């Protein structure tokens, strides 16, 4: 290929406080190429993205766009002017501004306008939205929009300027499969225009569907790089973690007469879901799935008292429980790992240790109602070990952890309360293959030790790999219960869509 690469990354080294995040990474993107960047959390992917888009300055090495001069004082605005756009995993949108402004403010900034024209912003935003064939309420504040809409807005924002290189960091996590397909259509259209796309995703089958080139990072180094045609999901996964991974179905048998840990009967909340009944037995991992917005998350939130149900009954461990608040749910023995762990499940700036005991401080009261420091320290180190949280020590702030490790901290927090039932909403969203597998290993072990586990997820392969039973939610109702051999990817997908 003699085509001049549109982006060249040469020998980037970045060291954070003695830890080498990137140890000399080089890669290049040709125009119109979709380049997949794969790697576990902590492999250096995020750091590389930050360096390319000018948020972090590399210790050595250079970034060249379109055969020009290397970017020097790399700042975000310099990278943006050079044509590098990033769609961040957390979207990085302004919740207080309207969708239109979020999309088009950047172009006002880039064009160095002094005055901001509402009409111009509106027109620019409308053009992008129409170009992508989307329907978004441009006048709504982003804070009022759903996660999927926010993601679309982030995409629109990146495309409003003349992007030559588009970096997508986990763009599909919050999208349903229909929306993912639409995103891919958009990606193909961009390709035709000669935009080079760096696609970062944990969903390897998606990656292979769309990309032409694959680069795998491990521990800050490029371990493999080559045309996507030579790769299978299995091979990428192996390169990422350095060993084989299995996504084979693996469930431990459950005694048919095991205790019922959770019995839900006729649960309903107006406008969200109705007539939801199911049981969860000791040792069981129960999957609940459905499309985004089907009500799967709302059911979990009702059981945990976030938005309590209006009708129906819940019994935990054989005792009826009135759950009208989170406190009551916790008292009844229910734990909940929320979907958006970063904002709902963790105190990001606080140490791992404090996060682990945050939900269970009450149980550490000793004599005179003071906290028993020693006992706290003991259980923290036990959980730290048990869940194999990768961090220098339990005093590190949670913000410094990768997605998979942050998720373990949330799980640890609930384990410390010894819940009868643990609900996990999207436990592997934004978590890489290796950590995914380990998280499910942890869940299987918990189930074997008698905790009832409910996993709410739209990652169907992982449900197939680990669940004893899978319930399917459509438009607020349980439409199917799959058991044993019925649990298959195709079957679930079909039932979800209806």
């Amino acid at each position, binding site marked *: 290929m003699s085509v001049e690469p549109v982006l060249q990354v040469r020998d980037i080294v970045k060291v954070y406080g003695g830890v080498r995040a990137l140890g000399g990474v080089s890669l290049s993107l040709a125009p119109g190429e979709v380049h997949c960047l794969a790697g576990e959390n902590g492999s250096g992917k995020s750091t590389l993205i930050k360096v390319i*888009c000018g948020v972090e300055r590399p210790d050595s090495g250079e970034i060249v766009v379109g055969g020009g001069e290397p970017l020097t004082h790399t700042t975000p605005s310099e990278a943006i002017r050079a044509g590098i756009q990033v769609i961040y995993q957390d979207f990085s949108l302004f919740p*207080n501004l309207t969708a239109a402004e979020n999309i088009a403010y*950047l172009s*006002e900034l880039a064009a160095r306008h*002094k005055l901001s*024209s509402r009409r111009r912003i509106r027109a620019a935003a409308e053009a992008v939205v129409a170009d992508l064939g989307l329907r978004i309420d441009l006048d709504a504040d982003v804070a009022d929009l759903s996660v999927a809409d926010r993601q679309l807005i982030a995409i629109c924002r990146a495309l409003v300027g003349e992007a030559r290189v588009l970096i997508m960091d986990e763009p599909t996590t919050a999208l349903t499969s229909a929306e993912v397909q639409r995103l891919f259509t958009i990606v193909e259209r961009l390709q035709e225009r000669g935009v080079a796309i760096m696609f970062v995703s944990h969903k390897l089958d998606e990656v292979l569907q769309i990309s032409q080139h694959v680069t795998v990072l491990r521990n800050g180094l490029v371990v493999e790089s080559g045309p996507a045609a030579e790769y299978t999901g299995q091979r990428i996964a192996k390169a990422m973690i350095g060993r084989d991974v299995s996504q084979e179905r693996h469930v431990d048998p459950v005694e048919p007469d095991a205790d019922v840990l959770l019995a839900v009967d006729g649960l309903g909340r107006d406008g*969200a879901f109705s007539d939801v009944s199911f049981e969860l037995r000791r040792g069981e991992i129960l999957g609940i799935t459905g499309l985004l917005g*089907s009500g799967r998350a709302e059911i979990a939130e009702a059981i945990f008292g976030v938005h309590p149900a209006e009708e129906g009954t819940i019994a935990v461990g054989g005792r009826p429980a009135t759950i009208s608040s989170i406190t009551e749910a916790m008292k009844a023995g229910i734990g909940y790992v929320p979907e958006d762990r970063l904002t709902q499940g963790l105190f990001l700036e606080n140490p791992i240790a404090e996060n682990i005991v945050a939900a269970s401080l009450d149980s550490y009261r000793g004599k005179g109602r003071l906290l028993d420091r020693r006992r706290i320290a003991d259980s923290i180190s036990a959980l730290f070990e048990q869940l194999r949280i990768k961090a220098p020590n339990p005093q590190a702030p949670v913000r410094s952890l990768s997605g998979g490790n942050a998720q373990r901290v949330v799980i640890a927090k609930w384990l410390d309360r010894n819940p009868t039932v643990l609900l996990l909403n999207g436990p592997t969203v934004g978590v890489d293959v290796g950590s995914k597998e380990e998280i499910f290993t942890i869940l299987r072990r918990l189930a074997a030790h008698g905790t009832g586990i409910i996993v709410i997820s739209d990652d169907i392969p992982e449900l197939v790999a680990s669940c004893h039973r899978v319930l399917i939610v459509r438009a607020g109702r349980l439409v199917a219960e799959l058991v044993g051999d019925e649990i298959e990817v195709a079957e679930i997908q079909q039932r979800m869509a209806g």
Partner: protein
Amino acid sequence: MNALKRLRGANNEGILLAVIIVLVIAMAMASPAFFTPSTFFSLVRSSMVPLVFALGVLLVMVSGGIDVSFAAIAIFAAYSAIAWSSGSGIDPGLFGAFLIALVIGALLGGLNGVVIARFRLPTLIVTLGTQGVFKGILLTYIGSRYISAGNLPPSVLAAGDAYLVNIPGAGYLHAMMVPVVLVTIGVWWMLKYTVFGRGIYAIGGDVEAARRVGIKVVRTQVLLYMMVGALAAFGGIIYVILGKNANPQSLVGSELDIIAAVVLGGASIFGGRGSVLGTVLGVLLVQLINNNLVLVGIPSTWQRAAVGILLLAGVGIQALATVRASSRSTAIHEETVA
């Protein structure tokens, strides 16, 4: 529903206006002395300086900070300009006095901005610190002497008696209202129609996201605090003109009423939200209470409590609106499902 929403305003300005109207009606019923031109004129007069300060506080609050140093900057800048003039005997003229004060204010504000933006320190702590420093320097090095009307520069003294409208027996509208109104419109225009102004909202919404889209956060913040310092100085000089004296001990201590007015006006203490219209209404409401509670027979000792209660109510409405908004967004979500 939509018409109702528009009436309520993006930051509950409509509710605020309704509260003011209800209050005015109640006061008018309670006291015949209330509903007179003189009450109106004195309300306008007493609102001018707080409004200028409130605009500065609004800008900082929209950017996600809180500023308690504006009163110290205001009196520092105004007193320095006047003291220099009366000490040297040079009358810089009205514009000259404004100019000197604005430059001093911008410099002090810029200092706030540099410390806040460069070192990413919490704005409340920084401005709490600098307000002490500014006041200390003023009293130690510039002067602690009260400058009476006779020692004011003649041009400044003369401006104190310039009226726009003067109805003998009823009251007057002061000529300084013109620059105050112009500045208010200027701030409104800047926040709404300039890339810089929208950038302030963006920074208040999410600083990290602002950095990522290439907003020069440090530069924007430094400029913003310079502007806020200049606004404070502007308010300080008007304060001197209206009061016809310059007292280095004054103004500091009045911060809370101003901040309360801005919060009542719908500005979010978490940043990213707030409007000039709301701020104007908030200032009017607080001044209405401060000026007239006595008139309707409520002891003046209740003034502080009344402002405090209003502040709590204002923040309460904000919090309720947030809760409502979040439940609304799930409702929208459900509709798309069905």
